[in-house]
């Protein structure tokens, strides 16, 4: 994009500046650090110039918003047409309590729902299973049967909201429950709008809510792809997530690399199952973290979009432009929030939210100030939601699409992250792809090494965390924390016992037997799971059938 002669002359001028005025200043006032680099280890120039991204070609590398390679955004008008979806991840206690929180959030101007399930639900245990002890309703809502799901969405018409569900190993079951609730509400199932996370690979790599071994899990995922392609045209059948790997400690460049490496594995699995890439490609969604290193984060989102578009078009031959688009949800970085002086977290979240918006996110969760201490209270959630509303409606940053495009620094970082991610993807390809890389612990080790390095940097003072290793004060938490009602577990147990007595057990058993046959036989399990859900088979019963057929995954314990 730049004229070669002009670049050469600029290089000379830059040298003159460096040896002249810059050197003079440095001699009198040394810089605070010897080296400046991003969290991913990309060197940060003193002041970026066109020389830092000399190959950048506007038409080839940026394009216009809504056009290939989508560096500038997936829609032509972005937030001028409609602000991003403000979607706070929420859920705790039982279905009734969470239903109340959802209605509160919708009243406060939230525009989409995001369901947090408790750990037993996420790992396929009913609330009355021994492994569920102490965990029921803690980090999310406890859902053990269709009945709980009906309560969760009571009074919320499913054709009027879009719902994202953070559910992975048992995603098929919770999706089936959602469909069944819609049927009971009399809503057209084809109109359902939402997302299931359904991204099992990052569970092995970082998040930990796996159930079945990787290969069997991949089959469940492609079953869901195929089912959604036919039955739920507006549903995002997966949300391929870098978020949790970043929370577990990886860098921005690794986040892009590992997320897209996993995405490649899903696309490949879909194709191996006989699906046309353009039949499910447009329904793949992504989920990223927005961390503290502001410009690197903005660049990360842009790099991820460009790299995915190129991969889908060049590597997989996708023809539908919607298959090329990387649409993503963002959550601010919970792991950057401090238990010390927790009010300061509001500012961290605001900066991270700003980076996500400047990076062109489609939806956003802003974390609450109290998340290093407990589940967020209603007050804290409101402040978090207001933070994004201020970014959206007061700051003006949403008025021009991709406003940091052309910044020498941001374009340089965007190219660097794309290049680093490509290198990792090639390495993972050489190992046989993401599934093999996870099976041999490569991605886990990379994440752990980065996490340890980050911690050491905080401890030796190379990285500042305000209130933690600098500017500390002794303070009390200045606000109330949420407490989950300890009676939830007992209530859930009683409810389940009662349901098991009340339901038509012959129908339930027949549905579970049919599911077992389908799972063992290799047919698509979605219709069989839907049948079991409608017959009020519990989540645990359904997953137990699949555990019997698929086996269970045990992770290695290296550190």
């Amino acid at each position, binding site marked *: 994009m730049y004229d070669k002669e002009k670049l050469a002359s600029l290089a000379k001028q830059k040298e003159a500046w460096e040896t002249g005025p810059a050197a003079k200043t440095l001699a009198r006032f040394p810089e605070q650090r010897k080296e400046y680099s991003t969290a991913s280890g990309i060197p940060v120039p003193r002041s970026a110039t066109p020389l830092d991204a000399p190959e950048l070609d506007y038409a080839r590398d940026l394009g216009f918003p809504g056009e290939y390679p989508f560096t500038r955004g997936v829609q032509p008008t972005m937030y001028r047409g409609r602000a991003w979806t403000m979607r706070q991840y929420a859920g705790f206690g039982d279905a009734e309590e969470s239903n109340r929180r959802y209605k509160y959030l919708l009243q406060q101007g939230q525009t989409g729902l995001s369901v947090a399930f408790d750990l037993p639900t996420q*790992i396929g245990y009913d609330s009355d299973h021994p492994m569920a*002890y102490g965990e029921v309703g*803690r980090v999310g809502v406890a859902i053990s049967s269709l009945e709980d799901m009906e309560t969760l969405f009571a009074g919320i018409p499913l054709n009027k909201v879009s719902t994202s569900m953070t559910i992975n190993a048992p995603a098929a079951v919770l999706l089936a429950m959602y469909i069944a609730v819609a049927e009971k509400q009399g809503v057209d199932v084809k109109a359902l709008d939402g997302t299931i996370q359904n991204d099992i690979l990052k569970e092995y790599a970082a998040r930990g809510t796996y159930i079945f071994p990787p290969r069997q899990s991949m089959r469940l995922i492609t079953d869901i792809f195929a089912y959604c392609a036919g039955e739920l045209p507006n549903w995002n059948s997966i949300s391929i997530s870098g978020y949790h790997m970043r929370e577990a400690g990886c860098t921005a460049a690794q986040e892009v690399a590992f997320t897209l490496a996993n995405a490649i594995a899903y696309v490949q699995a879909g194709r191996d199952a006989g699906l046309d890439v353009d039949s499910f490609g447009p329904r793949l969604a992504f989920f990223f973290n927005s961390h503290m290193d502001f410009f690197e984060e903005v660049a990360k989102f842009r790099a991820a979009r460009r790299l995915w578009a190129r991969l889908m078009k060049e590597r997989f031959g996708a023809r539908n432009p919607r298959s090329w688009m990387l649409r993503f949800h963002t959550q601010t970085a919970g792991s950057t929030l401090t*238990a010390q002086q927790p009010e300061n977290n509001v500012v961290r979240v605001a900066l991270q939210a700003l980076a996500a918006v400047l990076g062109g996110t489609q939806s956003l969760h802003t974390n609450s100030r109290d998340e290093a201490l407990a589940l967020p209270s209603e007050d804290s959630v409101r402040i978090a939601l207001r933070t994004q509303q201020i970014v959206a409606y007061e700051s003006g940053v949403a008025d021009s699409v991709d406003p940091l495009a052309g910044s020498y620094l941001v374009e340089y970082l965007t190219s660097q992250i794309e290049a680093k991610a490509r290198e990792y993807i090639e390495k993972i390809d050489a190992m046989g792809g993401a599934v093999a890389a996870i099976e041999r612990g490569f991605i886990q080790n990379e994440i752990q090494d980065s996490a340890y390095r980050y911690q050491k940097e905080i*401890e030796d003072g190379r990285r500042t965390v305000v209130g933690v290793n600098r500017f500390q004060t002794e303070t009390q938490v200045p606000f109330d924390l949420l407490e989950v009602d300890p009676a939830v577990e007992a209530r859930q147990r009683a409810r389940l016992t009662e349901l098991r007595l009340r339901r038509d057990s012959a129908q339930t058993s027949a549905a579970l037997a049919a599911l077992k046959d389908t799972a063992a036989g290799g047919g698509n399990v979605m219709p069989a799971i839907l049948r079991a859900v409608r017959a009020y088979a519990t989540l645990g019963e359904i997953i137990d059938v699949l555990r019997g057929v698929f086996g269970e995954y045990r992770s290695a*314990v290296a*550190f």
Partner: protein
Amino acid sequence: MPDSVGLEAKIRVLIAKPGLDGHDRGAKVIARALRDAGMEVIYTGLRQTPEQIAEAALQEDVQVVGLSSLSGAHRHLFPRVVELLREKGMGDVLVLGGGVIPEKDITSLKEAGITEVFTPGTPTGAVVEFIRRRLSGGGA
């Protein structure tokens, strides 16, 4: 002839994840930091019941058990581990807790026999030092 390292027995530590919580960044960072500080560290991996943890502590003959939970289940699970250790005659094992643990829970955890609770932001060095001091007979 034993070398100089062999003369001083290494401190043995079990790092465990009770319950269903999958957040193990902190557990792994602590495990590595203790190992780098010269301790013998065993990490259980995810999803351990209190029974499994107490059994592992016995089998591995550890002096320290570090429990990590970020899911809010600490109130149930940490005291249960202490109880089971006592039943196995391992009441003298130092039990430490870490994770997202509100201030008001810390008092009751200590009453239940958890020696110390380390919350987010604790430098790994502080944990190393705490263990060394306690095991050499020093007070908290």
